């Protein structure tokens, strides 16, 4: 019964497996990585192609690429999760209050949201990074302030629908406070779509971190991050392709997994968009 149901949810199962795998990699990095990602630099074995000693080869400073990719998962996933958590919190609070209170506050929030949507997010993140300066913490902040507009819009539209449902009116009629109604009556009923957006947002944030690191504004060397590794390896892409291919693959697989998970969740949580089975 369960196996049959799961077989129909290929997206969900594949996405979950990939994401769980990546999270395990990140959490257990010290146990899994054969070498230390920074300290085990051995210039004698620099730019070795993949082999028995170094499965993914070594980079120009003789560091093990596999170990760096494994440790890189920590950076990528934490950037994705933390910045999307910030985005979700900002988006939920703004969307919930805008949808529920309406009037001038709604106009203001929606105006701000539309402005945010009209600015290319890479440019906006770059602008914040330019002000704050490079560094991992600043990446969290920049990405956490960049992508809340999608969550905000979805939340607001769901609130507009839910607000007029009878059980919300009934909750008002027993005298519950507005904050309590928003967070205990409305929010639990609309987490589905918000969760889907959040999953896709994590993927977006990982790509964005890679882009920022690639441009030299994100994680600073020698901390291993997938985007940063790509940036360094770019110049010798044709000479030592393994140094760039493996971090690129890691980004690709992680983002794919998150997107599959998001799609799978949407199929379960949002009956309207359910693909025909």
């Amino acid at each position, binding site marked *: 019964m369960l196996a049959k149901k799961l077989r129909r949810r290929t997206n969900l199962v594949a996405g979950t497996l990939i994401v769980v795998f990546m999270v395990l990699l990140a959490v257990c990095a010290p146990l899994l990585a054969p070498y230390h990602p920074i300290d085990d630099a051995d210039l004698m074995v620099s730019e070795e192609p993949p082999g028995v000693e170094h499965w993914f080869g070594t980079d120009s400073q003789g560091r093990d690429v596999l170990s760096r990719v494994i440790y890189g998962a920590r950076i990528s996933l934490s950037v994705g999760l933390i910045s999307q958590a910030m985005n979700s919190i900002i988006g939920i609070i703004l969307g919930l209050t805008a949808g529920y209170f309406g009037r001038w506050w709604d106009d203001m929030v929606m105006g701000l949201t539309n402005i945010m949507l009209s600015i290319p997010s890479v440019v906006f993140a770059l602008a914040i990074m330019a002000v704050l300066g490079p560094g991992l913490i600043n990446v969290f902040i920049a990405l956490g302030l960049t992508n809340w507009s999608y969550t905000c819009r979805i939340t607001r539209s769901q609130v507009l629908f839910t607000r007029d449902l009878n059980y919300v009116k009934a*909750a008002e009629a027993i*005298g519950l406070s507005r904050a309590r109604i928003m967070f205990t009556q409305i929010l639990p009923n609309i987490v589905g779509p918000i969760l889907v957006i959040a999953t896709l947002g994590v993927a977006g944030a990982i790509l964005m971190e890679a882009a920022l690191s690639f441009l030299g504004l994100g994680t600073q060397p020698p901390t291993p991050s997938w985007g940063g590794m790509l940036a360094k390896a770019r110049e010798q892409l044709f000479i030592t392709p393994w140094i760039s291919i493996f971090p690129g693959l890691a980004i690709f697989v992680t983002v794919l997994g998150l997107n599959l998970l998001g799609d799978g969740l949407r199929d379960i949580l949002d009956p309207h968009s359910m693909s025909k089975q």
Partner: protein
Amino acid sequence: MPDGTPLLSVQNLKTYFYTFDGVAPSVDDVSFELRRGETLCIVGESGSGKSVTALSIMGLLPSPPGKVLDGSIRLQGANLLEYSEAQMSDVRGNRISMIFQEPMTSLNPLFKVGDQISESFIRHKKIGKKEAWEASVEMLNKVQIPSPARRAREYPHQMSGGMRQRVMIAMALACDPEILIADEPTTALDVTIQAQVLDLMRELKANFDAAVMLITHDLGVVAQMASWVVVMYAGKVVETGSVLDIFEDPKHPYTEALLQSIPRMGRRKADRRVRLQEIQGMVPNLYGLPRGCSFYNRCAKAMASCKETPVNLTDLGKERQVRCLLYG
């Protein structure tokens, strides 16, 4: 409580809706009083302003577009329209409660019914979760739900419509309110369940010593429940009186026509196969009400003067009022 201040007194209430299509006087100059131990029925067609009156009292009017322009709503002398939102939320569910038309959608699908009733206790009685839960089970018992302790742990989808309406009533009565407003509480239920819910409400009214304001379009319900009746048409009160007076001797042509449009067992035979009466025409559009009587174009007794003369409520004594030129 024959004299003195009534429990709830609504005077000259005016609630208008401001929309793109114009201004709709949904409630226009409505006055009535509700005394302890009584049931007041507000009768009228869809769009006659019954529900808007109730929402105005609760302070739950969708605003915008709705707005209370004028009048007063006094709960034991205190004007609720002057209350702040915080003060009103202390009144709601505590002193005045409301139950809604659709029991199927009036409960939050994500929470156990026991938790939903508990909310009311926790909010107004400031008691702990555990005590609130026990009080909720007790409430479910009072609204005659069998095995309440088990039912309290169920979710709304596990209950039938009649059960859910009982849960709604339990929620509304939890904090022992002085007034219960019921907005078409039985419309969505089938007939046998309707009768059970009405019986329950009558019993509870006596036990809880609450006054009930019942909104309905079902004259059968009115006959069973009401002590006083307010008949509304197009936002205005057209007739008020005791339930006996209204049914025995309707004054306003609209009330009369309403009563004639109820099918009665055996009437066909006695009256030699008369067709069931209907009221011709439609409720007028609230955006363009005539200056005179709103019922003019459907009225069997309409006179030429009805169309242009604004009609006021005429006092007929014995707490009877009627808005018709025939009595002016």
